């Protein structure tokens, strides 16, 4: 597979904020999510890719062509900003036709292409309305249609779900997946919501303070975070600093305060460990388990999150979070103040050096 976009050691200063030495390769047809908190530099990165801003250093290569100095109109990159930015003085049809008219296509060709993209996105009935009369969801579809009509090499989506009603978010997420499949366009989607990234991405780049913390497939980013920030931001839940020492057989012990965790791999010195709450098994009494880590603690609090319940367990001053299904919670008859045993497999504890 060949790269659609290559960012090569790119720096960009904007006031006091800067993007620092960003490098990434996005493959043709990939759905790539840039994940990060507000102020991480996600929108700035998109604007540099779109050519709205020029980088201070480094190169931007689209489809093998160095476009670092090229203006946005020479890049063939579709851009859908957070507020969709539909042209309010034009009808939906003219919004979609905007880029096609600039390509000096004939009237018939424009009609045909607008209808084609409108049909694929199910917005044929909106074509003669003005943007001001559209709902948020409709406006989003029109903005997508407008960007896709020019058959861009790359589609940039800035927080596409942030303005969508939370009830409709799943629906829109599925819609984006369908659009990506149907058009086959390479997508860069920027978001601060890790569930969105998990659901949509082929690969994720985690951005923080203008720096890329980690790039990889969702599984890797969520289960093998490369930094404490990534672990925290992807709601790993359990992150602790400790001191490691190898104990042979490819295992190490990490001492976190009074607790010791056995982990896979040989580590020495200061490390951080993380494990997701869904990897913790809970029992009211001691059980025989293959898990090497057993912790005894007391349920301090629990939060009903719908399908699952998040337990907060205190063990020798350390808070450990664990997920349990609602039915297990009631079957075990768990309550606040109850003493429980937690089991975590060594292989499911991730070590961050």
């Amino acid at each position, binding site marked *: 597979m060949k790269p659609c976009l290559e960012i090569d050691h790119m720096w960009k200063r904007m006031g006091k904020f800067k993007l620092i030495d960003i490098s990434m390769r996005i493959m043709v047809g990939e759905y790539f999510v840039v994940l990060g908190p507000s102020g991480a530099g996600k929108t700035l990165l998109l604007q540099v890719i*779109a050519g*709205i801003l020029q980088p201070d250093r480094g190169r931007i290569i689209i489809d093998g062509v160095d476009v670092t100095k090229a203006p*946005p109109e020479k890049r063939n990159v579709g851009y859908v*900003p957070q507020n969709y*930015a539909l*042209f309010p003085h034009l009808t939906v049809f003219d919004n979609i036709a905007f880029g096609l008219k*600039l390509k000096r296509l004939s009237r018939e060709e424009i009609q045909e292409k607008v209808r084609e993209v409108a049909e694929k996105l199910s917005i044929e009935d909106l074509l003669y309305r003005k943007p001001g009369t559209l709902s948020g969801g409709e406006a989003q579809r029109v903005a997508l249609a407008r*960007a896709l009509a*020019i058959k861009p090499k790359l589609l940039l989506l800035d927080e596409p779900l942030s303005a969508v009603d939370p009830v409709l978010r799943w629906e829109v997420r599925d819609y984006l997946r369908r659009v990506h499949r149907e058009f086959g366009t390479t997508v860069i989607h920027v978001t601060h919501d890790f569930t969105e990234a998990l659901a949509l991405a082929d690969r994720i780049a985690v951005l923080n303070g203008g720096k890329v913390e980690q790039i990889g497939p969702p599984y890797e980013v969520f289960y093998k975070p490369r930094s404490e920030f990534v672990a925290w931001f992807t709601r790993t839940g359990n992150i602790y600093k400790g001191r490691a020492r190898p104990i042979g057989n490819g295992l190490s012990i990490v001492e976190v305060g009074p607790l010791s965790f056995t982990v896979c791999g040989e580590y020495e010195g200061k490390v951080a460990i993380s494990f997701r709450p869904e990897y913790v098994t809970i029992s009211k009494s001691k059980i025989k388990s293959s898990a090497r880590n057993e912790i005894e603690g007391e349920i301090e609090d629990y939060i009903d999150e719908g399908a699952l319940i998040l337990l907060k367990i205190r063990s020798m001053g350390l808070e450990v979070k664990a997920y349990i299904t609602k039915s297990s919670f009631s079957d075990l008859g768990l309550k606040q103040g109850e003493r429980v045993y937690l089991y975590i497999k060594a292989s499911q504890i991730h070590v961050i050096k």
Partner: protein
Amino acid sequence: MSRELVFFSTFSSILVLFLVIPLVICLVVGGPHIVEIASDLEALDAMRLSFYAGVTSSLLITSFGTPLAYLLSRKKGMLANIVESFLEIPLALPHSVAGIMVLLAYNSRAPLGLLLSNLGIIIEDSYWGIVFAMAFVSSPIFITAMRAGFDSVDIELENVARSLGASEIETFFKISLPLAFRHLVAGFILSLARAISEVGAVMIVAYYPKVVATLIIERFLGYGLRAVLALSTVLALVSLTVFAILRFLLKGGE
């Protein structure tokens, strides 16, 4: 009624009455004399001249001021701030001083005036002198209105237009200008109203041919209040109509 409301209403109504009473009295007293203007050829000529010169001045300001207002709205930085400060100078000057500045810079013996006179533009006591004086004092009004118009256009609209293949110029003409068009019209009308009402700068640069504002001063000084009643009332009516149109245009977009 609360005490706060009484306090605010009292002060507000005093100022409103202070502004409205002269206008109402002018219309009531001068209204019956309006017909006199129909046979006053000098006044009709002066009004026509004021209108033509005002429109020429506003068209020139619109042509040169629109790109300038766009630049001021989009390009931030020291240079933009300096340019903006200079543009506001005519607002702070006594208008007679503005007239003297225009005369000094563009009279036919000054280097720039020589260049202009080669193009057939001589400003001393001429139509072009009136236009120059009007343009000098009314430019800031147009630029302020137009800049506010461009400021109100979401920059993301321009970014999207560029990403769809539009150059900066195409984006300006297809997106920014149409969206700020109401402000362009408003700026045009405001600068036209300002130009027509200008007297100080115009009298210094071009006393002749006489514009209506000069004529009113001349008649008032020569013959007193009664002599300018009809003309003043007509001008007041014209100004009111202009502002009614302006408000309608601005409301229309809300």
